C-alpha cells in the first residue's frame, strides 16, 4: 500500500516539476523574468523548518529534490534543517554573518520583517506576482507573503487553529452538536468538566493550555470581531473592546467557570488531552489528526472540528512560505526551487507528512485532504480564517503575547491591563 503510494507520488512529483515550469513560464510575463530551465544553474542553500525528522528528511531528499533535479540538472541544493524554535536564531546569525540561504522557509508573520529589511527578494521583479497566484490561493494566504503590494513569498502549507470536540463525551452530557456560540461553549464546558472528590480536575471541559497561548487567544480575538492591528498595521488594536472581551471570556472560563486548571496541560503534552479523554473540547491544530491516527484511531469518528463563534466565526491560520534571498547569486535557480516546492505535488507531500493544510485550493479534492477531516474542515473554512502579523516588528511583539495572556490567566492583571500593557510595548517596538 505504502509502496504503491510512493510510486504514485514520484510520478506525480515529476508531473509537478513540469507544472512548476509551466507556472514559472506563466508568471514570467516580461522578458527579464523569463527563465529557461537550461539557464537555471547553481549551488543553492536552503533553510527549512519543515521536512523535519527522519521521515521529513527522507521525503525531501529521496522524493522531492530528485524530482527537482530531473528538471533542473544544473542545480544542487544543500539543506539546513531547523525547527521553528531555532529558525529565528539561524536567520539572525545568517543575516549577521552575511551567509543568507538562497531559499528560506519561514512562517506567516515573518515575511514582513525580513522583506522590510531587504533580506528577501521581491518576487514581482523575478516575474511572479500576487496576481499570478490569485487563482490558485485564497487571497488572505497570498496576503501573508505580500508586503506593500509586492510579493515576497510563495505559500506551501497552512497551520490552522479551531475548536475540536469529543462528540462521544458531548453525547454523554446530552449535547448532539458542538457549541455554536461563546455562551454555548461556556455552558458545555462547565457541564463537561469533571473533578474528583478532592476537587482535582479529571477532565477539562475546554482545554486551552495545550495550544500556544497567543494563538489560542487569537482564535477568540478573531471570533470576537477583533484584529491584531489596524488596516495599515500602524497601531495595535488587540486591546480594543473586542480583544478585551475575548481575553475576559478566556480568563472567565479558567478562573470563574474553572473548566481547566493552570498546569493541567501544556503545549508539550505527549498526548493531546482530547485523545486520552482528559478534555472534552479544545482549541486544536489541524495536525491533531496525525496524532489521533497514531494514538487513538478508534476516536476517528468522535473528534469533530467546529468554528468558535463569537460575533463571527473565528479561525486562526499560520503557515510556511518559501522565500528567495535578495542577496542570492542564483536567484533564478532559487526561485525555481521555491516554485517547485510550492507546486501541487511537493507541497501536498510536505503537508501530508506534517498533517497540515495545503495552501493550493486545487488540493481540496486530493485524497489526503478528503481523508483528513480536520484538514478538510480547515480548507473549507479558510474564508473566515485570519492570520497574525502585520507590522515588520511582529516577531518582536509576538514574543510578549504569552506572558501577557498568562498574567491575565493568573489574575496578576485584568485582561484590559494585560492587553493595554502589551499594546504599549507593541507601540514602543513599532516606534523604534
Amino acid at each position, binding site marked *: 500500500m505504502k509502496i504503491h503510494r510512493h510510486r504514485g507520488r514520484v510520478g506525480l512529483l515529476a508531473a509537478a516539476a513540469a507544472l512548476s515550469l509551466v507556472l514559472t513560464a506563466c508568471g514570467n510575463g516580461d522578458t527579464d523574468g523569463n527563465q529557461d530551465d537550461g539557464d537555471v544553474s547553481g549551488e543553492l542553500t536552503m533553510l527549512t523548518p519543515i521536512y523535519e525528522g527522519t521521515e521529513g528528511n527522507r521525503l525531501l531528499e529521496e522524493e522531492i529534490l530528485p524530482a527537482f533535479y530531473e528538471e533542473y540538472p544544473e542545480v544542487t541544493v544543500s539543506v539546513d534543517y531547523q525547527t521553528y524554535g531555532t529558525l*529565528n*536564531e539561524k536567520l*539572525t546569525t545568517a*543575516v*549577521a554573518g552575511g551567509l543568507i540561504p538562497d531559499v528560506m522557509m519561514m512562517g506567516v508573520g515573518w515575511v514582513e*520583517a525580513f522583506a522590510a*529589511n*531587504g*533580506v528577501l527578494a521581491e518576487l514581482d521583479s523575478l516575474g511572479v506576482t500576487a496576481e499570478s497566484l490569485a487563482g490558485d490561493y485564497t487571497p488572505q494566504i497570498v496576503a501573508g507573503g505580500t508586503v506593500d503590494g509586492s510579493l515576497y513569498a510563495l505559500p506551501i502549507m497552512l497551520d490552522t487553529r479551531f475548536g475540536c470536540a469529543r462528540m462521544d463525551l458531548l453525547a454523554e452530557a446530552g449535547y448532539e452538536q458542538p457549541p455554536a456560540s461563546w455562551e454555548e461553549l461556556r455552558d458545555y464546558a462547565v457541564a463537561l468538566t469533571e473533578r474528583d472528590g*478532592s476537587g*482535582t480536575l479529571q477532565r477539562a471541559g475546554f482545554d486551552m493550555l495545550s495550544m500556544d497561548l497567543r494563538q489560542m487567544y487569537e482564535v477568540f480575538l478573531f471570533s470576537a470581531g477583533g484584529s491584531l492591528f489596524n488596516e495599515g498595521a500602524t497601531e495595535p488594536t488587540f486591546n480594543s473592546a473586542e480583544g478585551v472581551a475575548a481575553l475576559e471570556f478566556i480568563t472567565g472560563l479558567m478562573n470563574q467557570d474553572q473548566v481547566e*486548571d*493552570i*498546569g*493541567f496541560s*501544556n503545549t*508539550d503534552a505527549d498526548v493531546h488531552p482530547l485523545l486520552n479523554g*482528559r478534555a472534552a473540547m479544545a482549541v486544536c491544530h489541524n495536525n491533531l489528526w496525525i496524532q489521533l491516527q497514531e494514538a487513538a484511531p478508534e476516536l476517528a469518528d468522535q473528534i469533530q472540528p467546529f468554528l468558535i463563534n463569537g460575533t463571527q466565526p473565528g479561525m486562526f491560520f499560520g503557515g510556511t512560505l518559501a522565500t528567495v534571498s535578495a542577496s542570492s547569486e542564483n536567484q533564478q535557480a532559487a526561485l525555481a526551487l521555491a516554485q517547485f516546492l510550492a507546486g501541487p505535488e511537493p507541497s501536498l507531500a510536505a503537508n501530508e507528512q506534517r498533517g497540515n493544510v495545503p495552501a493550493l485550493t486545487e488540493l481540496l479534492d486530493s485524497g489526503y485532504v478528503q481523508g483528513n477531516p480536520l484538514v478538510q474542515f480547515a480548507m473549507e473554512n479558510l474564508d473566515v480564517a485570519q492570520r497574525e502579523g502585520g507590522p515588520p516588528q511582529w*516577531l*518582536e511583539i509576538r*514574543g510578549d503575547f*504569552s*506572558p501577557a495572556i*498568562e*498574567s491575565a490567566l*493568573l489574575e*496578576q492583571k485584568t485582561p484590559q491591563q494585560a492587553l493595554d500593557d502589551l499594546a504599549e510595548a507593541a507601540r514602543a*517596538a513599532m516606534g*523604534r
Partner: protein
Amino acid sequence: MVAPAVAHAAIWIAVPVLATLVLSFTDYRVFAAPRWIGFGNYVEIWHDQVFRKATWNTVVYTFFTVPFSMGIAVVVAVLLNQKLRLRTAYRAAFFLPQVTATVAIAMVWLRIYNPQFGPLNGVLSFFGVPGRAWLADPDWALWSVIVVGVWQGIGLKMLIYLAALQNVDENLYEAAAIDGASPVRQFFAITLPMLKPATFFVFVVSIIGAFQVFDLVYVLTDGGPANATTMMTYEVYRSAFQDFRMGMACAQSVVLFAFLLFLTIVNRRLTRSDEK
C-alpha cells in the same frame, strides 16, 4: 614567547568584549548597520520591568542555588572522602548530573514535576499532601527551577572539594582526635577552614555559573509563567534572537557582566580581609 597568548587573548577575549561594549551603545538590529544611540539601551533597561524581574529572579536563583549546593557539596565531599565501599561509584553518581546535558536533565525534571503524572505529586499524594503545578504556578515555578539548579550544581563543587580535601594534612585530624574533638567539631574547626581557598574558587565559579543559567530555564519554563522564571541571560537571548535587537542584547550582557564583576570584587575583598 607571550605573543601567542597575547594574540589569543586579543582575538578571543579583548575584541569580543570591546565589540560587545561598543555595540551596547548602538541600535543594532542585524539587518542594518549599527546606529549610535549613546546610553539609550541602558536607559531602556533601567525602565524595563521585565528585565528588572529577570535581574531579581537571577539574584534569587543565585542566592539560593550557590550556598545550598555548596553546603551539600562539601558535606558529600567529606563523606565520600571516607573509606567507603563503592566510593568511586558514589562519586561518579554525584558527578553525573554535571556531565549530563542540561537539556536531558531538564526533560527528566519536567517529568518529575508533571502535575498529573509526575512522581513528585504522586509521592505527595501518597502522604495526603495536595500536588501542585510546579512549573506553571508563578508562586512555585522559580523554586522548582532552583531545586534543579541545586541538584545539578552539587557534582562539580563536590569534585573540587574532594580534590582540596586531599591536601588537608591528616595529622591535624589525628591531633584533634587526641584532644577529644568530635567528627563534627573536626569538620567545623579543621575541614572548613582548610577548604577556604577552594571555597573561594567554588563560590566565584558558582556565582558566575548561576548568573549565566539559561538552558535550564529555556527547557523547563521558557521564562514563564508570566515571566516568573525569566533570567538575565534569557532576556539577552530574547533581545538577540526574538527581537533582533543585538545592541540591546549587548547592553544587557554588559549589565550582567557588571553584576558578576561587582560580586567577584566584593568576594575577593572579603576573603582578603579574612586572610589578613
